[in-house]
């Protein structure tokens, strides 16, 4: 693994934390369960704050800035508000499905963090199939969303749910293929090993993979410009139109927990995870997660939404071939055993390929898929 042996930016040499840290299976389990729940909830509040203030700034308005210093207590106020709201269930709804949906959607968002390393070795379970686990578990939230859409007995919700299933099934493929590029270079499926292998952040070695993963990831978690399941201007609120009170809050939480999860995966796979000079590793991890999330906020405020057929076309005609190409190129480079001293050449070659392919393909892509369906 010639390329993976590189180490150019890690000034602080970190001893890996022993796998059973902080001692004993049950202590380890309990400690990280608390850490993960605390981390997810804190980050969700943090990213909600970042999103609201950031969007306020980008849209030249103030954003919530009244509750607490700099509006910092706004997420708390939001939480209190939704907790106190009335829980309304439509008469015609399938009560059990309607009730279960937010729970089923929420669990996977939390479970993803089981294999995300906060520091070298600091993770709940260092699975040797970590990334495979993430791919598998993240798809489960689709079931929750579809249940919400189906169980609400509302046509907007149903449309949103159908869109969701269509989109997730399509975007799963480029998402996984984009990951495989990273796995090829790192030579491991364990997320901790992938971070350890990142002498230079893989975003440099895998720029195309990063872009594909970012786009597919945004689509998976229902972020703009792929937020078709929600599509406020078309189908009101999509799958959660009929949700109120605490159950709505759960969906809200899922949305942001998933955004944090995707940001964390991107940070781990492409941005060097917890690695970085001077600052403590966990802080580097948090900083990277926030940076990725900020880019999502930025795209959300800037871009209009795609149409469902364009969304599908984007997955199948753009992301899918590109991810295959990325996989092919990466495999060739790894097979050829690219020498460590020429890593900068590989970076330049891959960035050049990415830029050319994206430009050519996007010109080609936008010519496709414009047509009226005759009825």
């Amino acid at each position: 693994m010639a390329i993976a042996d590189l180490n150019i930016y890690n000034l602080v040499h970190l001893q890996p934390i022993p796998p059973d840290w902080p001692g004993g299976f049950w202590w380890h389990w309990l400690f990280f369960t608390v850490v993960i729940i605390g981390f997810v909830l804190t980050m969700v509040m943090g990213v909600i704050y970042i999103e609201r203030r950031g969007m306020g700034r980008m849209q030249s308005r103030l954003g919530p800035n009244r509750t607490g210093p700099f509006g910092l207590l706004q997420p708390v106020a939001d939480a209190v508000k939704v907790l106190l709201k009335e829980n309304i269930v439509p008469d015609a709804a399938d009560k059990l499905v309607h009730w279960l949906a937010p729970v089923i959607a929420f669990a996977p968002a939390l479970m993803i963090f089981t294999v995300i390393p906060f520091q070298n070795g600091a993770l709940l379970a260092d699975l040797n199939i970590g990334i495979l686990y993430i791919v598998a578990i993240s798809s489960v939230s689709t079931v929750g969303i579809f249940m919400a859409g189906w169980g609400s007995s509302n046509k907007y919700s149903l449309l949103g749910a159908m869109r969701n299933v269509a989109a997730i099934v399509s975007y799963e493929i480029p998402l996984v293929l984009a990951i495989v590029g990273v796995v090829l270079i790192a030579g491991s499926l364990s997320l901790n090993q992938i971070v350890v292998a990142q002498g230079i952040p893989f975003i440099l070695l895998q720029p195309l993979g990063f872009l594909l993963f970012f786009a597919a990831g945004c689509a998976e978690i229902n972020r703009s410009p792929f937020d078709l399941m929600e599509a406020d201007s078309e189908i009101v609120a999509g799958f959660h139109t009929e949700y109120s009170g605490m159950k709505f809050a759960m969906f809200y939480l899922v949305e942001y927990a998933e955004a944090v999860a995707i940001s964390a995966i991107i940070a781990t796979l492409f941005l060097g995870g917890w690695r970085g000079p001077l600052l403590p590793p966990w802080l580097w991890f948090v900083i990277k997660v926030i940076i990725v999330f900020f880019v999502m906020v930025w795209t959300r405020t800037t871009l209009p939404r795609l149409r469902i057929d364009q969304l599908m076309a984007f997955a199948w005609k753009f992301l899918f071939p590109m991810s295959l190409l990325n996989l092919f190129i990466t495999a060739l480079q790894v097979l050829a055993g690219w020498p460590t001293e020429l890593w900068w050449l590989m970076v330049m070659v891959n960035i050049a390929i990415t830029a050319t392919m994206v430009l050519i393909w996007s010109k080609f892509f936008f010519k496709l898929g414009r047509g009226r369906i005759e009825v």
Partner: protein
Amino acid sequence: MAVRTEPFVLNMGPVHPSTHGVFRMRATLDGEVVVDIEPVFGYLHRGIEKLAEQRTYSGFIPLTDRLDYISSMNNNFAYCLSVEKLAGIKVPERAEYIRVIMSELQRIAAFLIAVGAFLNDCGAYFTPFLYMFRERERIVDLFEMVSGQRLTYNYMRVGGVSQDLPEEFMPALRKFMDLMPRFMDEYDRLLMQNEILIARAKGVGILTKEQAINCSASGPVLRASGVKWDIRKADPYSIYDRFDFDVPTQETGDCYDRYRQRVEEMRQSLRIIRQAMDQIPSGPTRAEVPHLIRPPAGEAYARIEAPKGELGFYLVSDNSIAPYRCHIRPPSLLNLTALRDMTRGWKVADLIIIFGSIDITVGEIDR
């Protein structure tokens, strides 16, 4: 084996984020595809035309503000023109210029909302909408200077305008005129070349030249389909024949063209305002008009090029102090008649943006 699908009816509105007011569409869908739509009006009906018959000629002006409530100045303008035509009243020069300036500013303000709301319908999460509101605020500030109001201005009067421009108006207007072209360039950079916007709007919801003419469409909707028809040029009213401006037209009549049409018309409006600012004379701003106008028996129809198209007021007088009959020709209603043809076969998402690109105000449809 072909999978059999079943169309279902989706009720959009009267309360829906994108129906621009209390407008309702009963859409028959086959999955995401629009098979048919049926527009349903009447949720905002207030009987404004009937109310006109119970008020004096001047007393009706405040109610015209409530028709197309985002272009109140134009409504005032059209109504005052029709009363003046009916009663044969001559408006002083300065008032004519003020009316033109207000009318064109209002056009820009209305188009800002139209374009912003259209982009919102495309799913651009409020950013363009709020940017356009930022500029609209400047125009509303100008209107507040002259009329004291920020939405329903009630500024124009039969025979002129309610009061002369305050001293600080012209400098403020000049400042706005300097800033606006820069904002327009900003919109172009942000949106006109945006790939997603082009993919969403180009070729979508085409209204052909013939269809547009057949359904009596007017304004930007008609001109985007390639018909060079602008009442300011075709049948000049007020002092529009003194200004040098172009009537831009587009070719295909799709959503993108309607959007671009509005942007280009904003630039033309800026040209008109600039000329009016240079030429504006001093003098009285209101003709000597009796408090209770009693026009001779007869009828009059005056029309203007409102932001949404031809806005006309048809008045019948029986020589009393109130109109015997008042009929309003609203552009939104007639533009909307093309909706069904434009949306069939497109997707739900397209239905929303096609509807948004027509730019209606329900207050005007449900008089």
